[in-house]
């Protein structure tokens, strides 16, 4: 649980973050979205005291962060940034082991944790452990960056545009990985992005920042359905709202009994992808299957209805 209470940061008379209050429940992902200069990165850095607030209180797990020495606080909070920030003079294993080493874990425990994380990110430990970052692809470097942030099993992970430098295909994979890992460890994640689609895809809740102010904080469906200001609407891109909504929902709850022709779609498919398939293959209804068993069908009319303003 992270709580921000009336937090402001003013630098040389300029307000970077203005009176933001937020609560981030344990085990959830909050995405913070805004244009550059909106104060979203500063908001993130306030949580691990890379910058200090001018006013207000920040609590992590019930403790005021000002009562914890900054270095100790940061060792307990994972931190991943755009461009990964890997140490070029350290091997992959040494990079991942930085925080455990700062926490004086014994050597065997660090080695075991490094291998566990490499395997988790589908990087063969024996192959990658001793490489230097320069010998990795961009996508691999990014994965090591996230693995490093997770190394000491932090309950909280702060991420600043972690996927910003990745191409769209690797980016999608990295987002899926993050969701899976978040589920597995129950980590509380605060992720800053300027990409609304990324924010919608990853966030259990989304906070929109504009010129230092928190203009809306809502779950994805509510945000798309009722943007609080024109700025939020502009970030969403009004023309896409129906499809954004459909991308957030899956077909599972819409399945009805009955036959439908052609190849089935899988349970868990988003409404948006299902509708696209229905249009593409010119089928007014699609069979839905889970683990090879046909559950029933979804009709195009049901799918279309999901795009309506909630």
């Amino acid at each position: 649980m992270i709580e921000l209470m009336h937090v402001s940061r003013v630098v040389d008379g300029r307000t970077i973050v203005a009176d933001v209050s937020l609560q981030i429940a344990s085990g959830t992902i909050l995405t913070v979205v805004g244009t550059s200069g909106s104060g979203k990165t500063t908001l993130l850095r306030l949580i691990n005291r890379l910058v200090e607030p001018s006013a207000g209180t920040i609590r992590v797990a019930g403790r005021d962060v000002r009562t914890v020495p900054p270095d100790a606080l940061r060792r307990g909070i994972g931190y991943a940034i755009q461009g990964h920030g890997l140490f070029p003079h350290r091997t992959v294993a040494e990079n991942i082991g930085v925080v455990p080493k700062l926490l004086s874990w014994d050597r065997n425990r660090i080695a075991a944790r490094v291998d566990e994380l490499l395997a988790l990110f589908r990087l063969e430990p024996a192959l990658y452990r001793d490489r230097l970052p320069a010998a990795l692809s961009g996508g691999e470097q990014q994965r090591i960056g996230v693995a490093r942030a997770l190394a000491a099993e932090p309950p909280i992970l702060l991420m600043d545009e972690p996927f910003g430098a990745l191409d769209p295909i690797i980016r999608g994979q990295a987002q899926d990985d993050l969701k899976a890992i978040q589920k597995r460890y129950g980590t509380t994640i605060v992720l800053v992005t300027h990409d609304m689609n990324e924010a919608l895809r990853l966030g259990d809740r989304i906070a929109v920042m504009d010129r230092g102010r928190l203009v809306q904080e809502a779950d994805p469906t509510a945000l798309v359905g009722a943007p609080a200001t024109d700025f939020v609407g502009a970030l969403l891109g009004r023309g896409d709202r129906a499809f954004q909504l459909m991308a957030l929902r899956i077909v599972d709850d819409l399945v009805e009994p009955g036959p439908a022709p052609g190849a089935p779609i899988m349970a868990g498919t988003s409404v948006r992808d299902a509708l696209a398939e229905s249009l593409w293959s010119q089928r007014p209804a699609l069979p839905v299957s889970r683990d090879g068993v046909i559950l029933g069908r979804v009709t195009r009319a049901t799918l279309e209805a999901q795009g309506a303003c909630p």
Partner: protein
Amino acid sequence: MSVSRASIPKAALLVLLVAFLAAPDAFAGLFRPLAPAGTPPIYAQTPLLTLAVNHLLLVAAATLAASLLALGSAIAATRPAGRDVLPFARALANLGQTFPPVAVLALAVPIFGFGTVPTLIALVLYGLLPIFETALTGLESLDPALLEAARGMGMTDRQRLVRVELPLALPMILSGIRLSAVIGLATATIGSTVAASTLGEVIVSGLLTGNTAYVLQGGLVVSALAILIDAGLRALEAVAARRAGSHA
């Protein structure tokens, strides 16, 4: 380190230098045409080996002192609290470099007397700037995202300096030390004018007696030392650069 083709001439030079210093009289024939008739062709007042060792020790001591001072100042100047010191430190290092070593000797002798001390002071002052400037560049040109990541992970200021900044800046710092050492090797010869025991003694003696063979002996030994030390430190830099992950 594997022996590359380029290191063969250096190895030959090293063998030649050691042979000459160990048994200079064996080379007497080479220098006889250059020495005035009736004078010994090889400088024999003090053994050349003794002078070479003293010369090296003096330069090593001066380079070490200059390295510690310059690196310490560069580290201090790149800390948040040290920003104000930077212009002052830079001015001081510049002054040290631009002030002629001969003038330093002239000023230092009345205070410290003749001998090694004034020469050491002149060499230290003269050697500060290259190390200070390269260390500063090395420390300032680090990727800010790296330092941010280090801070975000909970490294203390000291851990950041020792584990991240210095190892990454090391190749640059070493190149400054190399420049300083090579300049110092040549400059140390003037120490003999104030009675410091260096290879300059051979050159000065040759100049006073019109003995070109002595001048050449002193000059050649200093050059050979400079070339070999330059090569050795360059190899060290290459190792440091590899450690800093700048290859591949």
